[in-house]
């Protein structure tokens, strides 16, 4: 059930930005749902699992997009790592802190995508990059109060509950 739900959420994270959020975009800016989901997963898993989920999610997105294979794999792995690291230090029950964390981690992830894109030969003006990074981070942060309480409860007590072999 847990893996099935995560798979469905992964697929929805791939589908929704191009469909539903096409209508809810702000000046062309849509949220990065897969990055948001990766952050949530990393916050509720151990380090190795977090990075594994990040790599998997990134690879899925890379294949789904069909270009720059490795860009999202690397980015989401780093995002998962950073999220895990921050969640270890910040109280994850605090939704305000989580919102800020999502903004921060998304910004790091988007900056990484931007730099990797520049490395891949894309020529984006810095102003556009800044606008996109801030916009996507803000949008992801806005979604936290709506999505996080449910996801967190599910990860702690519900169907998504993670049962590690060894207690932290």
């Amino acid at each position, binding site marked *: 059930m847990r893996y099935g739900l995560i798979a469905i959420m992964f*697929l929805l994270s*791939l*589908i*929704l930005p*191009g*469909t*539903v959020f*096409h*209508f809810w975009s702000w000046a062309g800016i849509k949220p990065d749902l897969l990055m948001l989901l990766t952050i949530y997963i990393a916050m509720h898993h151990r380090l190795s699992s977090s990075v594994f989920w990040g790599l998997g999610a990134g690879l*899925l997105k890379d*294949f*789904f*997009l*069909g*270009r*720059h*294979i*490795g*860009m999202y*794999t*690397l980015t989401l792995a780093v995002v998962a790592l950073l999220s895990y690291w921050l969640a270890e230090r910040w109280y994850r029950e605090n939704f305000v802190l989580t919102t800020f964390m999502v903004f921060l981690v998304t910004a790091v992830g988007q900056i990484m995508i931007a730099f*990797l894109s520049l*490395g*891949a*030969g894309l020529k984006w003006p810095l102003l556009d990059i800044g606008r996109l990074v801030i916009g996507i981070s803000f949008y992801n942060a806005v979604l936290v109060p709506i999505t996080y309480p449910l996801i967190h409860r599910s990860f702690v007590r519900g169907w998504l509950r993670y049962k590690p072999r060894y207690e932290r």
Partner: protein
Amino acid sequence: MRKRVNVTGIAVLIFFLLLGVLISIRLTGLDTNFPNPVGGFLQSALSPLEKPILQFGNEIRDNTKVIWDFHTVQLQNEALLKKVDQLTGDNIILKEQVLAGMRFTKLDQGQFRNPTLNKYEKIGASVISRNPTTWYRTLTLNRGSKDGIQANDPVIGAMGLIGKVVFVSPTTSEVLLILDGEGQVSALVRGSAGNGTFGIVQGTYKRGSRLTPEGNLQMLFRREDNVNAGDLVLTAGIGGVYPKDIPIGKVMEIKLDPTGLLKTAIIDPLVNFDTLEEAYIVKMEGK
């Protein structure tokens, strides 16, 4: 014993991992034909889901567009209504101007022409109001002293005499109609043989007998004067107010005075005063 961490090994691993990822990103760029069976499978598997969601979203957006764009639509609606009002007003003004132009053309072509009238300068004017009281038969034209109009200037229409200016403001002038008993016109009746009989045309709309709603014209003659129904009544040009030979009306009926000395000719005016909209004011200044 604490487990030793091979930092160099990890660093080398990360370096090659990064290098591999960067090479992969470079090799699978936008302009490369990278075979992507996993992506193709994902796309084909998810597209049946994506399509209805997008369609559904489109339908919601189209059907609720008026709600999201309500303020814009409202502003547009207000602007359009103002525009419609303005255009309607412009259209009415244009139509009025066209109709007035047609009437002036008709007026200018003239149902009557006489050499006396051609000597004078004429100014076209529109009727802007009629006397709101029942005391006088007057109307107001949109020309005044700024246009050189003076009191006692005659006013003519397409068919004949209308009256004279009795009051002038800078932009308007009040015209006393010949129907009103206060205005009298020296006239002559020209019979079928061409001979003329002089007299005074007087309106029947009098200050003392205002019960008759419509004014009319009448003219007194001696019993032996040769005046018959159908004869044309023209201005005589005596008195200095009206130029000569402006048509006034036609003799409609002759009534004999009970004393047997006089007869009264009831004159049907040529001008339809009720539908009058345009007129010419004849400037008598210096003539």
